[in-house]
């Protein structure tokens, strides 16, 4: 009786360690093959899933519901034509983190739809990434065919220099 629990023997620690490792390995193995198991997903993958592309019709619904439209193109292009009510955040400026960009729209209780000049302009995706880097955790929408698609579908377009901005 006196011999039992004087100090923790090394063999006990080793056995405990082996059991823990075995449990960890078994856990990984089960999750790998179980239909409702957990699987490792890379962070970039997880982020990418939060950026969703929208068709023009879907974007129109969001527009009517009060979503914030963000124009990722340059200022001159924005002044020429834009989705009514859109905000201009040039993607290059945002990506380079230049001062003078008003990001307060991120705090608004509204969904954000980013667009540029079409499916392959890249500015919208770049701006989406920049917004993501500022810690925006909700879903970001990208207008699939950009402003040309919007215009071609017959939705209204705002033109000319806006007084306020």
């Amino acid at each position, binding site marked *: 009786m006196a011999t039992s629990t004087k100090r923790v023997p090394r063999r006990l620690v080793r056995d*405990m360690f082996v059991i823990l490792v075995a449990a960890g390995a078994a856990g990984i193995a*089960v999750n790998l093959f179980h239909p409702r198991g957990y699987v490792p997903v890379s962070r970039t993958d997880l982020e990418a899933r939060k950026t969703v592309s929208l068709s023009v019709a879907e974007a129109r619904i969001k527009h009517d519901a009060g979503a914030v439209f963000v124009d990722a193109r340059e200022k001159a292009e924005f002044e020429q034509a834009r989705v009514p009510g859109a905000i201009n955040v040039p993607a290059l400026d945002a990506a380079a983190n230049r001062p003078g960009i008003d990001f307060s729209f991120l705090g608004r209780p509204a969904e954000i739809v980013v667009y540029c000049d079409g499916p392959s302009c890249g500015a919208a995706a770049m701006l989406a990434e920049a917004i993501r880097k500022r810690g925006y955790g909700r879903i970001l929408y990208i207008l699939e065919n950009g402003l040309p698609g919007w215009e071609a579908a017959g939705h209204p377009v705002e033109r000319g220099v806006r007084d306020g901005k």
Partner: protein
Amino acid sequence: MGNESGIRKAINSTLYGNRFTVLIRVALGAMLAFTGAVKLTDPASFGLVVARYGILPAELVPYAASFIPPLELILGLLLLIGIRVRAAAALALLLMTAFIVFLSVNVFRGRSFDCGCFPVHLLGIGLAEKVGPWLILRNCVFLACFALVYRADRHLFSLENFIEKVRLNNLEKTKYE
């Protein structure tokens, strides 16, 4: 110490390892193995249980949910067949302590929800045990039982014991032949 009372003898014998110790070891082992196996059949649902306690950060919940069920199963099987009993009992003690802490924090917060201790609903049995002081007490009893199993020097009807017997028998043979 020559005239020990009967109760004292019984306690000493249990601490050393008698049939009662075996009963506790096998019962606890079976319980751990059973709940571990059931939880293992649905990792995601056990993840929800872990998340419900609201203690681990969301990033760690999947790891805990993947790790605890196989640990319970392995510990249960080791206790059941009786090998590496002390190591298994030590880890079971840690596990029970963690459970008690998880329960206590939520009882302290004044919350009450299905504890998910024995997820037998996965087997189609309705059993909803609510988090509460009674569960903490029950886990403390389990803790004491695991402490007894950890403390015991001899485990009858165990693989450990059997191996030791075989070893001792062979020792004799090599000595006298």
